[in-house]
Structures are given as structure tokens and as C-alpha cells.
């Protein structure tokens, strides 16, 4: 095994996965907030969210695979899903394992959506708000050397900023249907 290539591939796909998951979260927030415009109808926002999420999972799989194949850090298959047991940065890597577990749950429940109980799907999907920060922190914690690089810092900063801006927008959004149901009816 050519060590450096596996190692670089692992770090690179990790960063790409982070960017893709950030886009997925942002588009999920936009969809939930009923964002729409002439160039971005609702169904497009929904489709981007779904497709980017799946692409992100694909890159996550490569990221995990290359980390395990590469013998340098001694990361085993189980370390990908059972957190805090690895030799290499057990805590920071473990956060990644937790994020992976949540991601798998979110993906499986969403792919099986019509057959999954609605409340269960919603509860699992909400864990994405825990999952994404875990991924960010995992990235920073497992790659202290990389984080010294300017462009890596900027990339992480941009991802965090994007989610914060999206959430800020979302909090300010209301819709008559949501308000009416919460109030027990429109206040006529």
C-alpha cells in the first residue's frame, strides 16, 4: 500500500464530505423553511438536498474506507462505527464515528420513508443538527496539522458560516399553516 496516497485521499475526501454535508444541511434548512424563488422552485431545493446528501454519504464511505485501508494510523473497521476505541485520536475520531452512526440512521429512515413511522423519521432527521457539528469538530480534532493550513481554516469557517446564516434565516420564517396549527387554529 502506498501510504501517503491513502492518507491524503482520506483527508481530502473527509474535507469534501464536510463541504457536501454542509450543503445538504443548508438545503435541508431551506426546504424546511419553505424557501422558494423563480430559479429555485421547492422541488428543486428538495431534490438538491436529497441528492447532495447521498453524494456526501458516498464520499464519507470513501473517507472511512481509505482511513481504514491505510495502515499508518491503525484505524480498524469497527472504529468507524463504534466510537472512542481507536488508537489514533480516540476522542476526535470517535466523534466521527458517532456522526457516521447518525448519518446511517438518517439515510436509512429517509430511503424507507413511506414505510417508516412519521414521528420516528422526524426524530432521527432532527439528529442532523447534532451530526453536522460533530463532523466539523471531528475534522478539526483529527487533523491538527491540516488545520494550520490557511485554506483548510477558511473552508471550515465558510461551512460553519453557511449553516449559521441558513439557521438565522430559518428562525425568522413563519407560515400561516404552522402558526394556525400551533395556535389550534387561525386567529380570525
Amino acid at each position, binding site marked *: 500500500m502506498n501510504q501517503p496516497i491513502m492518507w491524503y485521499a482520506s483527508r481530502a475526501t473527509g474535507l469534501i464530505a464536510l463541504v457536501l454535508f454542509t450543503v445538504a444541511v443548508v438545503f435541508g434548512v431551506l*426546504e424546511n423553511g*419553505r424557501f422558494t424563488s423563480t430559479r429555485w422552485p*421547492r*422541488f428543486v431545493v*428538495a431534490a438538491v438536498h436529497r441528492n447532495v446528501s447521498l453524494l456526501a454519504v458516498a464520499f464519507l464511505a470513501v473517507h472511512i474506507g481509505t482511513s481504514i485501508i491505510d495502515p499508518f494510523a491503525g484505524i480498524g473497521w469497527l472504529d468507524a462505527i463504534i466510537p472512542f476505541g481507536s488508537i489514533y485520536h480516540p476522542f476526535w475520531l470517535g466523534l466521527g464515528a458517532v456522526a457516521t452512526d447518525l448519518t446511517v440512521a438518517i439515510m436509512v429512515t429517509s430511503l424507507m420513508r*413511506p414505510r417508516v413511522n*412519521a414521528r420516528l423519521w422526524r426524530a432521527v432527521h432532527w439528529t442532523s443538527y447534532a451530526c453536522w457539528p460533530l463532523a466539523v469538530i471531528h475534522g478539526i480534532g483529527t487533523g491538527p496539522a491540516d488545520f494550520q493550513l490557511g485554506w483548510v481554516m477558511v473552508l471550515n469557517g465558510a461551512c460553519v458560516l453557511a449553516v449559521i446564516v441558513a439557521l438565522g434565516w430559518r428562525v425568522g420564517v413563519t*407560515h400561516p*399553516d404552522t402558526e394556525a396549527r400551533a395556535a389550534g387554529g387561525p386567529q380570525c
Partner: protein
Amino acid sequence: MAVTDSDQVLRVNPIACHAHGLCAELLPELVDLDEWGYPVLAGGVRGTVPAPLVPQAKAAVAACPTLALRLTYPGRVS
């Protein structure tokens, strides 16, 4: 040119529908929105879907964020 009807009908679960409106975007031929944003199905509550539109109807059903839209057979609708 006559368009054949499929056997299937579109149905909205009015309680689950929260007026997201993706169905009207994806199936404007059969779904209109009332003044409050809720779907009005062509052909009334039990509108039959013409055969050429069934794939679009399936896309609309899959796109609904609350799974309020259903494509079903009339016999199964009470």
C-alpha cells in the same frame, strides 16, 4: 387525440397536508393551489390520473415533505 386514463387516483390526506406546494409544482396539469396554498385535485377528491401523467404523479407523491399525497386505486379509497 384521446388520452387513456390509468386506473389510479390521486388522494390528499388533508390533515397531513401543510401546504408545501411541491405537488402543484411537479403536477400542474392535475394539481392547483387554492388561495391558502392547499392542493385542489382535478377531477375532485377522486380524480383519475391519465396514463401519461402517472410517472409525474409518482414524482409528486415522492416529493411531498409530509407524505400527504397518495396514488392509489379507487377500490382502496373508502
